[in-house]
């Protein structure tokens, strides 16, 4: 009975959506991805889809990693405006010190240093917002100055060069036809799934939903919140690594423009600003949708002076869609 089967699928989707709240982002993702590929002139040539997928994901991975971290912080009821600056610092350190592929151990130590910095910066954000009770919007903005200043101090003018061996690996490696950047993304989503189904995940949503109640019930609220900032810092440092592999060079302002998209992506992906709801998968979808929108606008060749406007309008539309649907439904 096809009808029944259809209904089952719809029901399953409803239940799935209720659980993970990614219905709208999923639809946006599907529509924008189909549109992107169908607008390509030579999409059916062998290799085109693979090439486009690779070029998209290797470019977007840094921001998507930041979006993940941002999402965790948002779910926990916070906000991290400093993740872009953490990327800058990581990028600068890598560009300055990873210059030759002949010193794998040295390079590994530098990567560890970058990750260490991400963790430390996240920890500082966490302490300031959670332990000292400062408002995240302001305090992470303030620390973003500190980190950005640090990046500028380390590398006043752009420079450094990551060895080609490394950048080529990042740019062109596939496993089973899947680009490495996409694999990294999937691996992180799976790792998160592992934690989401454990106490950590449950606590996180509780803390974001109502910290006081969670605290009274015995959830280690302070630590949970701090941990989200640490994770955000950690993911930002990974963002720095992938960004450095993408560009092969260092620039003290490299992460500056990544902070806002990390928030917009998460929100389009159904993460709520007030905490306690949303999912990492949805946020990733949201981030990809942002990228797709830019790509599609480029393909349809609008007047180049209108690009900024149209891009913003389409994002606005994507954000407004759920609200509109609700409004119409209520009118009925």
């Amino acid at each position, binding site marked *: 009975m096809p009808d029944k089967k259809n209904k089952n699928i719809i029901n399953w989707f409803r239940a799935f959506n209720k659980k993970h709240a990614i219905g709208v982002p999923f639809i946006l993702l599907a529509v924008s991805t189909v549109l992107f590929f169908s607008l390509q002139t030579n999409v059916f040539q062998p290799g085109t889809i693979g090439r486009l997928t690779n070029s998209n994901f290797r470019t977007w991975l840094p921001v998507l990693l930041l979006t993940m971290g941002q999402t965790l912080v948002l779910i926990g009821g916070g906000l991290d405006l400093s993740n872009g600056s953490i990327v800058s610092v990581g990028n600068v350190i890598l560009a300055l010190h990873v210059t030759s592929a002949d010193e794998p151990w040295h390079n590994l130590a530098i990567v560890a240093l970058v990750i260490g910095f991400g963790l430390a910066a996240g920890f500082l954000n966490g302490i300031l917002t959670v332990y000292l009770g400062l408002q995240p919007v*302001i305090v992470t903005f*303030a620390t973003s100055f*500190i980190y950005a200043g640090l990046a500028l101090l380390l590398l006043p003018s752009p420079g450094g060069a990551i060895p080609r061996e490394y950048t080529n690996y990042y740019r062109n490696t596939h496993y089973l036809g899947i680009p490495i950047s996409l694999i990294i993304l999937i691996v992180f989503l799976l790792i998160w799934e592992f934690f989401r189904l454990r106490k950590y995940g449950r606590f996180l949503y509780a803390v974001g939903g109502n910290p006081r109640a969670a605290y009274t019930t015995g959830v280690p609220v302070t630590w949970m919140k701090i941990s989200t900032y640490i994770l955000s810092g950690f993911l930002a440092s990974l963002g720095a690594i992938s960004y450095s592999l993408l560009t092969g060079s260092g620039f003290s302002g490299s992460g500056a423009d990544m902070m806002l998209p990390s928030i917009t992506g998460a929100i389009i992906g159904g993460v709520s600003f007030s905490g306690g709801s949303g999912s990492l998968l949805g946020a990733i979808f949201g981030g990809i949708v942002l990228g797709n929108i830019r790509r599609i606008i480029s393909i349809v060749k609008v007047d180049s002076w209108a690009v900024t*406007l149209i891009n913003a309008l389409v*994002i606005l539309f994507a*954000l407004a869609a759920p609200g509109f649907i*609700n409004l119409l439904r209520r009118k009925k």
Partner: protein
Amino acid sequence: MNESEVSNNSNKSIKKAIKISPPLIAMLIAVVLFLLSGLLPAGYSTLQGAIRQALNILRLASFIAIIGAGQTLVIISGGEGIDLSAAPIVTVGALLTYMIINGQNYLILPVLLLVILIGAAIGLLNGLGVTYLKISPFVMTLVMSGVVQGALILWTKGYYDGKVAPIMTQLVARDLIWGIPGMIFIWIIIGILMTLLLERTRYGKQLFAIGVNRTAARLSGVKVNRMVILTYVLAGAMAAFSGFLLVGYTQNAGPNLGNQYLFPSIIAVAIGGTQMSGGKGSYIGTIAGAIVIQLISSLLTTMQLPQALQQIIYGSLLVVILIIYGREKGLRS
């Protein structure tokens, strides 16, 4: 009166003595910073120099504070309210003024009206999105700022030719009386109006109410959505008006003019003791915050530190100031 009540009372008076409001602390910090700046080699050395320096800082701070006025309202209105579109609205206000007035005095009033209307219209869109489409203000106004910026780019196609009207220059940029720039007087008027609006009008009381608890406000007869929308409209109009004033000062407008004022204005609001989660705050606080912020930047400039160090110190000082009095109640109190 038993023993406990005695201690209770004496305690209260001590409390009152110690409990200084955030705006006052901010002002104290400002005074200390200003005195410090006099010690710098490049700082002022005479009383006259000090006065000039103070006036100059006040003038620069005035723009942060005036742009922060609408921001104060939006933040108080709660619901994570914030207006990131203030930056491009300031730019739009400035560019419209600059390009349309083009040096002609008689166009000032019509253009001012147009500017305020456009700011209000953008604010209206923000408000509608926040209330009816339930988009969080941070993102709504962020995306709206993209829309406004985009419309600006499409409109100008990269050309920004114009000229400020002489009267505006006279009123805003030059000294009006006693060597005090006109801008300062405009600022004082705005400060009085804002304080009256917040403390002595029904709008103000209802604004604080929706900032704390929208359900309770609604059940007390407050039209919540209407209030929220009105607040974003006011914020938009005020940002546009700031742009109008700003171009009178800079005499020049570019596509990014407003950007550098956005975050300082938000920080000024926060330093002034307005609670980012809404329901609590004052415009006096924002004024004090703006002065502190401007003093810090001026101080860092005068100290001739490299850009990188300036940024680090700026960020650290902000954190320190917030730690001094920007803390929210912890879970155990």
